[in-house]
């Protein structure tokens, strides 16, 4: 089972960020979310936090999305010391998606009404 991201359907509403924070902390604060929406003029990119890594990054650069250049650090899921996203804002503790819900029932998928995030069996 995994979350499929269809960025073309994303409208930048940030409901996924909100519910991720709500489900994990009982409060609403997008800075506590394990998913982040990167907004571009022509599209929005949902990126889900991966594992924390101390390792130096050796793949920095631009990647192409839909013919537009995007900073590689934006689409990279890793939480890193030099990155400010995917960190608990008060404590600085790295955040990582835990595929929440029991049995897995990712809340971001539930609240993504535009269906940019869907759960698929695979």
């Amino acid at each position, binding site marked *: 089972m995994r979350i499929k991201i269809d960025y073309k359907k994303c409208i930048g509403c*940030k409901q996924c960020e909100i*519910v991720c924070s709500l489900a994990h902390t*009982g409060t*609403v604060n997008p800075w506590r979310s394990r998913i982040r929406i990167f907004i571009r003029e022509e599209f929005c990119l949902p990126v889900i936090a991966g594992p924390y890594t101390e390792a130096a990054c050796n793949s920095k650069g631009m990647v192409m999305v839909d013919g537009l250049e995007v900073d590689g650090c934006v689409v990279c899921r890793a939480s890193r010391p030099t990155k400010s996203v995917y960190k608990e804002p008060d404590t600085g503790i790295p955040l990582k998606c835990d595929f929440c819900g029991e049995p897995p029932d990712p809340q971001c998928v539930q*609240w993504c*009404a*535009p269906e940019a995030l869907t759960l698929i069996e695979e």
Partner: protein
Amino acid sequence: MFGWNGRILRIDLTRGTNWVEEMPTYLMQEYIGGRGMCIRILFDEIDPRIDPLSSENKLIFATGPLTGTGAPAASRFIVSAKSPLSNCIANPCCGGYFGANLKYAGYDLLIVEGKSPGPAYISIHNDRVEIRPAEHLWGKLATETEHALRVDMRLRDDLDDWALNTIGIADIGPAGENLVRFACIMSDGGRAAGRSGLGAVMGSKNIKAVTALGTGQVNIADAEGFRKAVMGFYQEGRNNGELIKRRMYGTWSLPGRANKSKSQASLNFKEGYSEAFVKYEDPEVIRKLIRVRDEGCFSCPFGCSKRSRIKDPEYPKTAKGPEHESMALLGSNCGLGDMEDICRANYLCNELGMDTITTGTMISCAMELYEEGYLPEKDLGYPLEFGNRNMFKLLKQIAHREGIGDLMAEGGIAFAAKYGHPELFMGIKGMGIPAWHPQAFDALGLQYATNNVGANHTKSTLPFYEGRKDPAHFVEFTKKDQDYLAIADSGVLCWIIYHGPLWGEKLSEWLTYITGTTYTQETLDRLGERIWNLERLFNLKAGITCKDDTLPPRITKEPRVKNRVVDIDRLLQEYYEWRGWDKKGVPNQEKLQELGLEKEGAGVI
């Protein structure tokens, strides 16, 4: 505290100071937020007779208990002050990310008072509040300003890509700086607190922009219950197709609906139908033609807003809109029938920071004056019959107050009167009439005429719903819907989604989950009615009378659409009676007592 922060941020521009005040409990309990809190504060703190562009006016940016909580389509914010256009109370509602950020920064309200000695912008980053110089921003277009501010913030606060595109910015374009009386406050690349000229109030205070960045949290009383209820709401929206329909087309489904029912404002309201718009009656056509992507306001999965492409190389690649109102007022109403042209006009208005609706009625008024020979070509410097693209030139002249634009910037009443034909300006209380022709439905005429802020499209319910078309009931429904929207604007809910008859009951549901206090429909109805009456008292004190609750003679005397006129005098009397007001539209003693507003009514009645 749940829902609210319980904190007011006040900025005194004259002295360059700012401080935080504790929110009085009664404000939260009895006025909820947004529009309700704004009228209470303005009623208490400013004299309704002041010059709106003087430093005595106060400008309030207000969120509600639902802003930033994730309640769907409920993260909007209200901007309020006395309007320089209508001289009434003003409380336009705006989408985007600004409201949520103000909330996360720890404030429910931002009250801006006094006047800055020079161009400045306000920067709010949680507890760090600064008034910063803005000479380098003065004169810039709306999105240019936002871009420059983002660059500033990246350098100053070392913000990453995600944070930079999560902040909220409210700003004015050149029109606001030049005190054009129908200038907007723009936000987040093309959203607007549009209708009452508050951009000019911001300009009069020398404030170019307010940036908000909040990294704090909002607390929810019943987080689990709320999470499930929102999920249920989405399911419902999917099942009845509303969610999908709105995201696909937003307001683009309305030009067809209006044109087919002969209610699309056309040629300065001479007609309710535009031949050139027949090709846009299918929203899919518009979508294919100009759409780039769908955009949602913060926490809104309906995403009614559209980013579109203009092919003209002189314009940027993509821009927001146009919405139905802009299409009608700048399009069919000015005789433009080509979507490319309409997009250009909409883009210009947004960047210059002017309300597309009132601007549309100003241009169409000039066009009719010109065609009738009342407005000589030498005053314009070019011909301006309906449909002439010289209107783009005129738009810029208004924003910069150049040539005839200087007079037009003073609003339609002054402009049309100067050329001897005040009746040709299609406005109410100085505010241009929106897209739906009032002769198409009597209910609309009454709603526009009695609205506390002027002819506004967002403070009334379109008469498609149950009972709203029925002559026996629509006066009653007008009152009911107005009261409902007063409270919805206090949430702050999005009018486009929570249309009263559609999902109106959700407000009490969300409020109860979020604040932990049980709100019933009856309580909210009463609070809404009180807000409406308090606004009315403010207007009466400002010098507005029942003579201002009217429609242009074109609507009441010339049968232009469906061979009908609106009998406004009869409707008004019936409406005043439903409201518990006297024949002059003044709330009577019993009504004030019932609402607990006797003290406020003293000196008015």
